[in-house]
């Protein structure tokens, strides 16, 4: 049984069918790439999986349990963690605090222990801090820990957002165009990081425009076009698929 199973997923906005009868599965431990031209419905698909948008029909099954219709925080609670195409860091918080939020789902302290700073929550606080620092270290941005998150360079913000997601110890990591806005060298480094993430045992679902990155790191690729899934296969097969070439380059090249 695959870790994530999606079947017959539909979502329309007004007259626009953003995601139309999409179905695929992601096995544990793999890196699955999702590509498609602008407006293909990739981000909508991510919003559906992470619960920020509710599907109109279809099912999303994670670890043999249906998750469609659950609120985002419960989906995150089950281990599906995402990043955003237009990085969403918490303003007015330090880099370290941003990443500490990642540990939220794996910690307990509530309002009472927060108000009274009960000794019971001290070890947890230390654990949260250590985990966050580890993740910053993993992404080589530990030196930024004390900086204000909104004041960072774009590439650094990407790393911090990734560290925040990893601090949540995801079982499935959704990366929404992580290479957007990065230069070639940074993109190359990102490819290495994604490989390292897979080595941690985390399953990755990757939406990306940068073809070299997707083709390099993905084990399998799905192609979306106008909300429909038009192809699925290994990177090599996708590169040769006439349907895909038609979508990207036009009829003449097919």
């Amino acid at each position, binding site marked *: 049984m695959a870790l994530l199973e999606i079947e017959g997923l539909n979502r329309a906005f007004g007259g626009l069918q953003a995601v139309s009868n999409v179905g695929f599965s992601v096995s544990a431990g793999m890196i699955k790439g999702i590509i498609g031209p602008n407006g293909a419905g990739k981000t909508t698909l991510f919003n559906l999986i*992470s*619960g*920020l948008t509710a599907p109109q029909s279809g099912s999303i099954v994670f670890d043999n349990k249906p998750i469609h219709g659950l*609120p*985002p*925080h419960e989906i*995150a*609670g089950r281990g599906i*963690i*995402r990043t*955003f195409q237009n990085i*969403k*860091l*918490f*303003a*007015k*918080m330090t880099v370290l*605090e*941003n990443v*500490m*939020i*990642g540990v*939220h*789902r794996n*910690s307990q*302290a*509530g*309002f009472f*222990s*927060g*108000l*009274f*700073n009960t000794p019971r*929550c*001290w070890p*947890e*606080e230390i654990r*949260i801090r250590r985990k966050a620092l580890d993740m910053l270290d993993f992404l080589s941005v530990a030196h930024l820990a004390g900086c204000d998150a909104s004041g960072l360079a774009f590439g650094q913000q990407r790393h911090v957002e990734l560290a*925040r997601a990893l601090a*949540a110890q995801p079982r499935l990591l959704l990366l929404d165009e992580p290479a957007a806005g990065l230069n070639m060298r940074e993109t190359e480094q990102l490819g290495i990081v994604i490989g390292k993430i897979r080595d941690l045992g985390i399953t990755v679902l990757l939406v990306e425009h940068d073809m070299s990155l997707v083709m390099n790191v993905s084990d399998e690729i799905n192609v979306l076009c106008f909300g429909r899934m038009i192809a699925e296969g290994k990177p090599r097969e996708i590169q040769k698929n006439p349907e895909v070439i038609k979508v990207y380059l036009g009829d003449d090249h097919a």
Partner: protein
Amino acid sequence: MSLKRYLPIITLSVLVVAVQVAVSLTGQAFYLTQLTMAAYYTVVAVGLCMLMGYAGQISLGHAGFFAIGGYTSAALTTADFSNASHGWLGHALIKTGCMAAAEDLYGAHLVRLNPWVACLAAITATVIIAYCIGLPVLRLKGHYLAMATLGFGSIISKIVVGTKVFGGADGISGVPPFTITATFGVCGEMQYRIPNYYFAWAVVICAALLMHNLVNSRVGRALRAIHGNEEAARAMGIDTARYKLNVFVLSAVFAALSGIFLTHYNGGIGPSEASIMKSVRYVAIVAVGGMANLWGAIAAGAGLNFLSLRGYFGSYDEAVFGLILTATMLFAPQGLLVKPEWLAGITAFFRSSARGRGNGAS
């Protein structure tokens, strides 16, 4: 955990003592009355600072919660429970000290509720009302939330004016002292002026301590994350609706507590305490303090309320708070009592030039 973390609290405590000693030595102990009242109003600002500054949820109805606390406690402690004191339940309540015999101004015998019981009832009422209001209203954001809470505030202010138990336009007077110990109660009597001053500021310090702890905890981080980016907070597993509701109720309880104590201190409460302008005043204080700045809110709360209570703003009292709010939004949206940009610039300049010199020498 470390001493440094609690340095602001210690500073505030020292300041409270210093002010008392200073005004008493200079023979101006009458200031303590307004300083005590200002302290209670500051508790509202502390709670609102948590809600607005840290969690990013505005409320223009906090005078409503202040009034719910004050009026509930006032109504319950001034009511005569003689009729209810006969049955077994009445006897049990008197035995346990929940009710006690008393005399009114004209010497008539009556049975009154213990202020602690009234306080508990007032807090319970506040929690229930805050939950019922917060549950639907906190789904709104920005202007919409401001307007909805404004509506709540105006409902409460009209209810207290229009309801007979709450004394209509006259409010409730003759509220008995809130007995804390056998020899001390929260009341406006001269001989208790100094202990009352210390009690009020102890309440502020406790409130500040709780908020200070919360801000630096897991929950506080989650609240600030909601402020920073709600969608990302949800995607990271934070139950934003629950957190917002909890902090709303918490800040409402702070406002109610402040209302309860101030009502007993003043010996009464009037409908002006529930007015929209009072809510605006609390928001103005938090804004001047710098929104997400607990210490700024306390300084602004104590300072501005003291000036207002001493009558420095004359008949333009409410206009002054309106002006303060407008001017803060226009010229210092970050607040007046946070480290200003220009000051940060100067410090940075001196730091970098000092480093430059250091490099030159090496």
